[in-house]
């Protein structure tokens, strides 16, 4: 039996499902530093990596963790790290390096309450904007928001697939509530799991330009040690990878492409789920664990004859601009529910054309209860 895809049914933690998803996606390098509530991802990787011939390293901190993950990616491995808020903050500079050098990798952030060390053992959704804007400079990013143990597995695979396809970091933005939830996990047969591998160069090694894109704006990626000349730098570089830091055109072209390679494929990346939206007057927008309370609230509202619906964001970045715009044209009211002081709210406000927007924040680590969301649904109708 293959040890990387443990086909079967389990009753297990979200964090463990995430680690198994990574292994099933082909991840063979994990470097990290333990932090509640993401520690179980590292613990499980420490146990499992040797079984699949992969590498597990506990690093001295999160800065070193992300740095070694970038190195492993250059060397050709699918690589991942897992952390929570404080560690995610430490990683921000090197996330920019991964964006700039187009290193495919996955970062799992099992979010807890912040700022600072905040609430180590409680959940939150306070790092959503940090995931988008945390490192300096302009860039687009990909982030998934799992809401169940099964999605911790499935969306970690998706994150790997996207990072490989677009040569960029991809995030799994989970939170303590889903990371520490136990539910049934079904791991399918290996042939049922669709995997994407990074595009590789077909040219003569002497002809290779590591940052020369194909028509899809994504450059094929050689691996260090294969005989290709591959110079990677965080400095603005030309297609050969050589620093060209004062040429305005080189900088504009590079940064535009880094953004455009995601934007142009946004429809391919973005995933949303809709519940009862066809005839809805009120649309609840939620993501991650909160989307489950929202689904329950919407069902309760329907039982009472209120035309409520749910837009669940499976990906939070890139943001589903078009979907939200379309919904805002069809409903009277939008209610944004999230475990923070208003982050995705701003994106919804930006895309909204016609609806009234209410906001239902929740802080402290608890998930919104269905009743709380139901009363917000009733509140305005």
């Amino acid at each position, binding site marked *: 039996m293959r040890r990387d895809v443990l086909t079967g*049914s389990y*009753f297990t933690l979200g964090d463990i499902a995430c680690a198994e998803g990574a292994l099933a996606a082909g991840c063979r390098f994990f470097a990290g530093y333990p932090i509640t509530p993401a520690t179980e991802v590292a613990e499980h990787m420490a146990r499992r990596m040797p079984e699949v011939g992969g590498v597990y390293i506990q690093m001295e901190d999160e800065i070193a963790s992300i740095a070694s993950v970038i190195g492993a990616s250059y060397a050709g491995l699918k690589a991942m790290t897992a952390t929570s808020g404080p560690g995610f903050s430490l990683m921000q500079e090197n996330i920019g390096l991964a964006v700039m050098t187009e290193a495919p990798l996955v970062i799992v952030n099992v979010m807890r309450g912040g700022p600072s060390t905040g609430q180590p053992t409680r959940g939150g959704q306070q790092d959503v904007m940090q995931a988008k804007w945390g490192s300096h400079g302009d860039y687009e990013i990909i982030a998934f928001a799992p809401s169940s143990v099964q999605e911790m597995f499935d969306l970690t695979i998706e994150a790997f697939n996207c990072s490989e396809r677009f040569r960029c970091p991809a995030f799994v933005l989970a939170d303590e*509530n889903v990371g520490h*939830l136990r*539910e*049934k996990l079904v791991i399918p047969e290996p042939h049922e799991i669709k995997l994407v591998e990074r595009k590789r160069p077909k040219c003569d090694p002497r002809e290779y330009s590591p940052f020369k894109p194909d028509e899809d704006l994504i450059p094929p990626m050689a691996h260090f040690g294969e005989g290709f000349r591959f110079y990677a730098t965080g400095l603005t570089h030309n297609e050969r990878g050589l620093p060209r830091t004062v040429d305005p055109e080189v900088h504009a072209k590079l940064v535009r492409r880094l953004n455009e390679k995601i934007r142009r494929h946004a429809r391919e990346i973005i995933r949303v789920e809709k519940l009862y939206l066809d005839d809805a007057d009120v649309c609840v927008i939620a993501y991650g664990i909160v989307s*489950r309370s929202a*689904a329950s609230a919407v*069902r309760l509202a329907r039982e009472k004859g209120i035309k409520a619906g749910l837009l669940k964001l499976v990906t939070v970045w890139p943001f589903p601009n078009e979907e939200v715009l379309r919904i805002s044209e069809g409903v009277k009211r939008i209610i944004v529910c999230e475990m923070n002081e208003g982050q995705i709210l701003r994106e919804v406000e930006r895309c909204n054309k016609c609806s009234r927007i209410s906001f239902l924040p929740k802080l402290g680590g608890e998930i919104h209860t*269905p009743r709380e969301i139901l009363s917000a649904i009733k509140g305005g109708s």
Partner: protein
Amino acid sequence: MSRYEIRFAGLGGQGIVRAGVIVGSAAALFEGKNAANAQSYGPEARGGASKSEVIISDGEIDYPKVEEPDAMVLMSQEAYDKYAKDLKKGGILIYDPDMVYDPKPVEGARVYAIPATRIAEESGRKIVANMVMIGALVAITKAIDPSAAKKAIERNVPKGTEELNLRAFEKGYEYALGLLKR
């Protein structure tokens, strides 16, 4: 059963978290139902407050936390004081009378005193008090089938201790059946 909510609470070291895992696995893996289990505990390894909640449902479980428990297993005075009042009207309240010295009455509750710690000591080791409680819970609530519970116990206890744990489960199950017959 559309949605059935169970809360275990007591002290760190009593196997509260493990009890939730076992009941959840029994439902999810051996009965074809859906189950969600979440827990909270203090920073202490032993002696701090510990809580574990399980939701069992034939349908999908949207909200994964307990709102109004149908059944509760309380294994410390602190847990009793904190949680007994949350029980759903007409719900089932199971507690350990050797650990809860002052069980204030809960209106409308069906109350069962199961001396799980004592039974566990008599059957070998105090550490299996949680298994006694699972046995009692299964007998009283019928929330899961006893055979599913046993399979889940075998899967979730350290190798070599299966027999000890299953014996404790049986003792709790029989003790509770005895109470029901009265």
